[in-house]
């Protein structure tokens, strides 16, 4: 039986192999994704993001368990950083999700960023589609531990959950651009620690200043993931957001945006491959470097020539 059919039937060995092929950019992966595409779009995609050590993995573990209690199946993609020097990685998110390994209705995959800087890996989108086509009701995407500006998740998930913890900084951090702007829900985890209430207040004040708030007012939920406190309420809020997305038309809007982004990225990738291939095969500008260095030519004219010759 072929891989695509096995993925459709939820065969875990097949799902895992296809994700590997997508990560390695194997041509079979694109062919399989093309075939699986009509089976995608059924899963509800939830992004979990926040700084390193804020408890994203533990929170994900507890959220998945609660969703399983409600009878739904869950795929999880957990991204951790790859070394910029060796390309190696330690993917440690699974440690917090050990109990889920043996649950038939759960599939967890760890991915290294492999050079991507936006908090996800290049193949994350493919992995999401594969889990979606395999029939999982929910797909959780846990980003790398983020700083301030790794916001790719908001273009990837239907619902983005931003996790904060006490002790990271003052209220100026909360009004900065970037990660604090992308939350559909905010979680203050480790809420038994000193300063949790202050974080809740600062987040609340940040949200009050938001001028372009739509009909959805992002809730702030306190949790202690390690003891499961606040988890039931958080799942309720996540589902509430899904209902809001579906009823307001926002879900369609977000998914259309995602498809446009995806197509743009695929085009850019193909164009980049074409240009770099052309340049390496002909030493395209090698001869012109001296002339540019001596100011006889400039980079802008050379760029115009390269683009004209390669693309038009």
């Amino acid at each position, binding site marked *: 039986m072929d891989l695509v059919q096995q993925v459709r039937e939820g065969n875990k060995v097949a799902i895992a192999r296809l994700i590997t092929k997508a990560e*390695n950019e194997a041509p079979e992966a694109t062919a399989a994704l093309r075939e699986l595409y009509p089976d995608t779009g059924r899963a509800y995609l939830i992004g979990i993001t926040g700084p390193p050590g804020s408890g994203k993995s533990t929170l994900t573990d507890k959220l998945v368990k609660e969703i399983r209690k409600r009878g739904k199946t869950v795929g999880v993609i957990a991204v951790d950083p790859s*070394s910029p020097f060796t390309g190696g990685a330690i*993917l440690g998110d699974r440690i917090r999700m*050990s109990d889920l*390994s043996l649950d038939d209705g759960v599939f967890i995959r760890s991915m290294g960023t492999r050079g991507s800087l936006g908090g996800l890996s290049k193949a994350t989108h493919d992995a999401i589609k594969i889990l979606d086509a395999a029939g999982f009701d929910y797909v959780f995407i846990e980003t790398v531990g983020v700083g301030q500006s790794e916001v790719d998740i908001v273009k990837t998930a239907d619902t983005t959950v931003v996790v904060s913890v006490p002790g990271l900084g003052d209220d100026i951090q909360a009004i900065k651009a970037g990660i604090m702007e992308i939350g559909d829900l905010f979680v203050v985890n480790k809420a038994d620690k000193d300063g949790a209430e202050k974080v809740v207040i600062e987040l609340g004040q940040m949200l009050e200043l938001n001028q372009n708030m739509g009909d959805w007012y992002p809730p702030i939920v306190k949790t202690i993931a390690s003891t499961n406190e606040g988890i039931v309420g958080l799942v309720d809020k996540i589902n509430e957001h899904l209902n809001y997305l579906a009823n307001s038309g926002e879900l369609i809007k977000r998914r259309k945006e995602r498809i446009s982004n995806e197509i743009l990225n695929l085009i850019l990738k193909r164009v980049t491959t074409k240009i770099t291939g052309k340049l390496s095969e002909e030493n395209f500008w090698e001869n012109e470097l001296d002339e540019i260095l001596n100011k006889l030519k400039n980079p802008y004219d050379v760029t115009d020539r390269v683009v004209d010759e390669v693309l038009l």
Partner: protein
Amino acid sequence: MADKIRVLVAKPGLDGHDRGAKVIARAFRDAGFEVIYTGLRQTPEQIVAAAIQEDVDVVAMSLLSGAHGTLMPKVVKLLKEKGADDKLVIGGGVIPDDDIPALKEAGVAEVFTPGTPTSVPIEFIKTHVKK
């Protein structure tokens, strides 16, 4: 780009000493492998489920409790049952020389004992993983 080698570093059974597992995980990382670390006290069933979902090329088990004779062969057997027996299984830890032939007989490709430089298992993996 060559396909990346993925390795599951697993701690089966009840011993809580994972210094060795962490040292080897770090060395594998520096060799350019993607290392998935399972954490402590994993059952063979959990290790096999993780190995399948992560689609690793190598399952590396660290064991200091003396239960290697039971747990390592069980992982090999379960991998086979689940249709994932294409993975290279290796072991490390405090394992008496006399026990090694039986482990190899059971399908553990190689066993690395205390004092082995980390370069040895790294080379072994690079040589034996079919990419």
